[in-house]
């Protein structure tokens, strides 16, 4: 047991070093895009409200909308950390041959890499939320909603990882999996409430969206951060359900893909 734990710990440690080896690159790859996305949304919504704090758009005042957007940034920083980029290149370049003989398998390795990534993102998220709170940009943040919010984002992070893992496995069939990754990111940004809160969408669309994992990727975690705990229990089970679904599909995809694997590039 301790030997297995040690393998996990060492892999996480190595992943930490790899991720932080080029810090500017890490910032530009992971943290920069989330902040630029927020910067655009902040300016856009400020311009829509024309700086007027009394106007209501879809039931939101300017202050509430900016508050919502701050929490979408925090959610993106914590939950959307995994990208499966390394995973697909491992398959395409024939590097998984090593994992087939190692006592630490492919999934374990990438899961450990994800945990390393996630832990860095939690620190970045904590730092960001502290700075925003200190500057008064986030208000009414209780310790309970903060703990619930962070825990919820970590669970969403696991769902995000399971989706990205499945997309990465498509490298058994596809030359480039980034196309699927970018497509999924575009759809999820649009349908998860990352740009526009779901209250502003047509009702028929929102009703349909609740049957998909999208609202749980951004909208629900933001609401949890804002202290709305009424949907926490249901949301938790829904996320676990979707994670299980994607994990099962990944398992069968891996088995099917492995049969096609030729070890190209070895």
């Amino acid at each position, binding site marked *: 047991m301790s030997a297995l734990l040690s393998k996990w710990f060492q892999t996480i440690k190595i992943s930490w070093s790899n991720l932080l*080896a*080029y810090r*500017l*690159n*890490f*910032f*530009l*790859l992971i943290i*920069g*895009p989330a902040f*630029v*996305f927020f*910067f*655009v949304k902040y*300016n*856009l919504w*400020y*311009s*829509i409200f*024309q700086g007027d704090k009394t106007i209501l*758009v*879809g039931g939101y005042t300017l202050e509430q909308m900016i508050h919502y957007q701050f929490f979408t940034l925090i959610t993106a920083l914590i939950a959307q950390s995994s990208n499966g980029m390394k995973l697909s290149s491992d398959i395409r370049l024939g590097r998984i041959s090593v994992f087939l003989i190692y006592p630490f398998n492919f999934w374990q390795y990438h899961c450990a890499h994800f945990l390393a990534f996630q832990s860095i993102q939690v620190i970045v998220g904590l730092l960001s939320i502290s700075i925003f709170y200190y500057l008064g940009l986030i208000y009414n943040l209780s310790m309970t909603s903060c703990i619930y919010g962070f825990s919820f984002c970590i669970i969403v992070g696991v769902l995000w990882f399971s989706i990205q893992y499945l997309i990465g496995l498509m490298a058994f*069939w*596809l*030359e*480039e999996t980034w*196309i*699927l990754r*970018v*497509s999924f990111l*575009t*759809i999820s*940004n*649009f349908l998860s409430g990352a*740009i*526009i809160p779901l209250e*502003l*969408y*047509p009702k028929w669309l929102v009703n349909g969206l609740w049957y998909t994992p999208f609202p749980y990727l951004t909208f629900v975690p933001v609401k949890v951060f804002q202290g709305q705990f009424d949907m926490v229990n249901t949301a938790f089970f829904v996320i676990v359900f979707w994670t299980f679904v994607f994990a099962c599909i990944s398992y069968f995809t891996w088995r099917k893909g492995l049969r096609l694997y030729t070890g190209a590039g070895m």
Partner: protein
Amino acid sequence: MKNILKHYASVYHGFLQTSLSEATSFRLNFFLFIIMDIIFFCSSVMSVHIIYQHIEKIGIWSLTEFMFFLSFSLLVDQIHMAFIAENFWYFSDDIRMGNLDFFIIKPISTIFSVFFRHIRPASCINILFTGAYFVYCSKQAGLSNLFILVSPLFVILALLLMVSLEILLSCSMFFMVESMGINFLRMQFQKLSRWPDFVYGYMSQKVFTFAIPILLISNAPIKFLLNPTDITPLLYMLIAIVVTILLIRIAWAHGLRAYESVSS
């Protein structure tokens, strides 16, 4: 001069042929590229439509004017994705792996062979779609047929500014060990340039118009097309293009001197 142009045209023809045969070898990828572009297009258009269901205007623009701007910016983006975008990703790899050597020794401009070599044929198909949407939005915005006919010129100008700014930014890759992040920064600049300038605050507007003129890419041509009596934005754009090209010459020369040809 004529011979040089002919030579470059024949080289570009070669680039087109290799890109096409490469793209058709992976057919599923080819179709996925088309789907990805359609998803991006639809999500951008629908986002703006959803916002306008709750308001009359954003800044000074109604839905028609905003969609005209958006369609122009999406068209520029689509052409960029089809003919240029892919090359920036290869460039960072080429520097890291020392493959740039093979471009430097070729008897044509290195910048040309580095940034115009890879073409994405799947995205070319979607240019027709975004182009048609741009014409539709131009009509909706009340643009005359004459202006619609000359608008390709503005698309080229916007593309020229966008690409030259990106090449200038990419010159920083020469000085970095891992330069993937620069490509992400480039994409963030694109993201910023897709919105009208009045969306941004005073300081951001000034910075992104004069210091890093990304807001001029779509804003200058659209402002001119909507109000042809004011040529100031177009003048700014032309100045920005000239200055950026001059800076590229300096930065590229410095970059090549710093290039260590690692792994080659």
